[in-house]
Structure formats: structure tokens, C-alpha cells
């Protein structure tokens, strides 16, 4: 048994004993990332669908830009949100820096392009299939957006999961705008980074296990639900 083995054993013990600190960190992680994805989706899904159905000058450029933004580095987003929210920044008076709200804002900005770009692609493919039928029924492109989003609902679940995966796994943005304050803004990824540098491997490893297990559980649930709904709803 090496150090790794001992750390893994200790990590399992932490998880199974329902350690309060660990539970708090996991809870905050989920709260921040789920909120961020929800907010991002409210903006990104209609925006992505509009970009799919509307034809205007500069649309191609916008699509390229959006796709490029999927790879937005979290630290850059963190830095920009930090600058906006810091005391001297334009939104400094709101006093949001180093709060979970700031972390939600940063992650929402980070995942919005991901959800929007995936939504655009999904809706564009669907629209290709529906175009003539909708035109025949006199449905204008703008009016088609809700119908297309609803009909793409099973595929859009994948876009949401991609967004959630990105949000829950990133460390760069939340550590800059959240500050990794114990009990306030410490989430799984920032805790892993800190505990590793401190040498507290059991907690870091335990958090890592929870993070991976959560990702698997969320995706498995979504996959199952998607299959079931498709069978029941067509």
C-alpha cells in the first residue's frame, strides 16, 4: 500500500461517514453549477435557436464566433468577471465578489456559448427536416422557434449536460471570483486544488471521486430518461 492507497481508503471513509465539510462542498458545487446552467440555458437556448432559423448579414461570422467561444478559458472568464465585480470595477458597488453569486455569474458566462452553439446545431438540423412542412403551414421562422426547441427537447438534454459538465469541472473561474473561502465559496474543484497543494490527499481524492461519480450518475440518469421519453413520446 502506497500513499495513494492510504489516501484512497481515507477518502472512501470520508465519503461513507457523510463528512459534513465534504457534504457542504459538494452541495455548494451543485448549487452553483446547476444555477449557472439553468440561467445560461434560459438565454442560450432561444439565442441558439434564433441563430439557427434567422438569416441575416454576418450570421456565418456569428456562428464561427459562437463555436469558438465554446473553448473560452475559464480563467479568462474569471478574470473578466473579477474586473467587473471588484471594488473599482463597474459593478463593484454590488458587493458580489467572493460570493456564490459571483461564481454562478462566471460559470453562466462560461457555459452559455456551449449550450447556445449545441442548440444552434441541433435546431438547424431539425429545421432542415421541418422547413417545407412549416413553410406550408404558414409558420414564420420566428414563430417556429418554440416548436423547434420543443421538438428538439431530447437532443437538447445533451447540450445541457455538456454545459453542466463544463461548469462543475472547471476551477479557473470559480477560484478567481469565489476565492475558495472555506464554508462560503469552496467548491469541489477549488477544494481539490487547495488540498492537493496542502498535501491533504484524502480530502482531495475523496472530492475527486465524488466529482466523477456525480458526473457518471447525472449522465446515466439523463441517458435513461432520454431513452424512456423517446419510447413513450416518440
Amino acid at each position, binding site marked *: 500500500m502506497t500513499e495513494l492507497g492510504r489516501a484512497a481508503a481515507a477518502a472512501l471513509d470520508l465519503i461513507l461517514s457523510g463528512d459534513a465539510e465534504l457534504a457542504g462542498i459538494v452541495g455548494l458545487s451543485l448549487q452553483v453549477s446547476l444555477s449557472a446552467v439553468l440561467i445560461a440555458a434560459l438565454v442560450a437556448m432561444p439565442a441558439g435557436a434564433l441563430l439557427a432559423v434567422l438569416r441575416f448579414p454576418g450570421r456565418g461570422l456569428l456562428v464561427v464566433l459562437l463555436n469558438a467561444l465554446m473553448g473560452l478559458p475559464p480563467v479568462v472568464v474569471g478574470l473578466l468577471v473579477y474586473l467587473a465585480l471588484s471594488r473599482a470595477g463597474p459593478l463593484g458597488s454590488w458587493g458580489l465578489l467572493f460570493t456564490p453569486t459571483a461564481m454562478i455569474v462566471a460559470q453562466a458566462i462560461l457555459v452559455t456559448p456551449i449550450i447556445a452553439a449545441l442548440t444552434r446545431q441541433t435546431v438547424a438540423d431539425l429545421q432542415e427536416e421541418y422547413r417545407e412542412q412549416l413553410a406550408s403551414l404558414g409558420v414564420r421562422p420566428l414563430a417556429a422557434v418554440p416548436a423547434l426547441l420543443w421538438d428538439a427537447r431530447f437532443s437538447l438534454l445533451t447540450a445541457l449536460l455538456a454545459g453542466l459538465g463544463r461548469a462543475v469541472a472547471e476551477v479557473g473561474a470559480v477560484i478567481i471570483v469565489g476565492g475558495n473561502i472555506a464554508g462560503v465559496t469552496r467548491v469541489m474543484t477549488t477544494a481539490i486544488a487547495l488540498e492537493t497543494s496542502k498535501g491533504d490527499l484524502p480530502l482531495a481524492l475523496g472530492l475527486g471521486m465524488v466529482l466523477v461519480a456525480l458526473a457518471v450518475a447525472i449522465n446515466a440518469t439523463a441517458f435513461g430518461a432520454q431513452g424512456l421519453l423517446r419510447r413513450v413520446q*416518440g
Partner: protein
Amino acid sequence: MFLARLVAATAPDEPLLPLSVENLTFEAGGTRLLDNVSLTLGQGMRTVVMGPNGAGKSLLLRLCHGLLRPTRGRVRWALDDGEAVRRRQAFVFQRPVLLRRSTLANVTFALAHAGVTLRCRRDRAMEALERVGLGHLAGRPARLLSGGEQQRVALARAWAIRPDVLFLDEATANLDPSATRTIEGIVQAMHEAGVKIVLTTHDLGQARRLADEIVFLHKGRLVEHRPAAAFFERPRSEQARAFLDGRLME
């Protein structure tokens, strides 16, 4: 837009037909797919557009319905109001495109976009579904129905908006004989209800069963436009004779 809808919904019943196609030409990628076609379609007769693959049958229907813009020439309806003209036509495609929602909701969706008030939609949709014999499947997800049933939903959707003209593009090409018979029965009922039927098919039997007049296209050109009986009895053109004899054509 809402005012336009209101006006369209309450426009007096001026006749939509005849439909005049004037020097209609359609080119794509430098190829002329429809070449200077002129014809007039009147009320009452079931028009069947025939011809080998690539003759331009589907293209002609899509141009008439306004799904495509002609390169040259034009499509003129007796009525001169774009919104009302579109609203009084329906189109059934070879592959029905149904929304991922219930059968009933597929029909009410079409009614909503045809400007029918919320209160009337359900009853009108149910009535149309009953007419195609699918009333009992109204609550089922439309995408889970069989191919023939899906095409009947498409017909119910078309019928519900009470069109003056119904276009059908190879509507039974993917269906088995029994489903085809059902579809033909519905088309016949719509014809008897006064809906102008314009359909394409390359099923000779179907053309004989349904056609009052034949529009025969070949390589994008109009070759014959005659009453069905005369066309089948004595085709004038060599292309039509070859097609009716089942010979493989250039």
C-alpha cells in the same frame, strides 16, 4: 401581422381557382429542371401530374404552393392576396413531417398557425381526425404511429384547415396497398367535399383510379395536359406512350 391574420381569416370567399401557371421555369445549379411550363388548373377536376423521375412533378407542385420561387414565369391564382392564397392551400408530402407531440396537437398546431381561435381548434381537429379514422389515436404521440397512420394525420392536418386546394406529392409512395387504399379514400372524400386535388404519382394504377385530368411532364417540359380517359386511351406523345407501356425512358 395580427391584423393581416384577422383580415385573412375573415376574407370573403372569393374563388381561389383557377390557377394559372405562366411560362414557369426553374433552374438550380445551372440545370433547367422545369422548362417554360404553362397550364391552367380549374375547380372540380382531380389533376394528376405524371411523368418519369426527374420530370419536374414535385417541383411543379412546390412552385405552385409557393415553397420555391421560379427562376422565370409565375404562378397566378384568381385571388390576389398572398396571405389568403397561402392559407387556402394545403400540401401533403411523400414523407409526413409530424411534430414530436400528440396526434391531436399536430392538428391543432396547424390550426393555430392558420389563425383559428383557441376555442375552435380542438373540435375542428377532432372532427378532422375522425374523418381520417384516427379519432381513437388522438392522444398518442404522432411519431409512434405507423407510416400509413402518420400520412393520415398529415391528411387530417390538411383537411382541418379547410383548404380550397390540396397538393399531394407522392403521398402513398412509401405505403403498402392497404394504407394506400385508405389514403385514396380520404382524398376521394375531400374531392367530394369540394377540395381541388392536385397530386403527383408514378403509380399508374393510382393515376387511373384518381385522375380526371392528366398533366404529363417529361424532362421538365409539359408534354400533355388532357382529360384522363383520353390520355390513357390515346396518348398523343411518344414519351407518354412509352411511359404508359412501361418502357424504360431516356
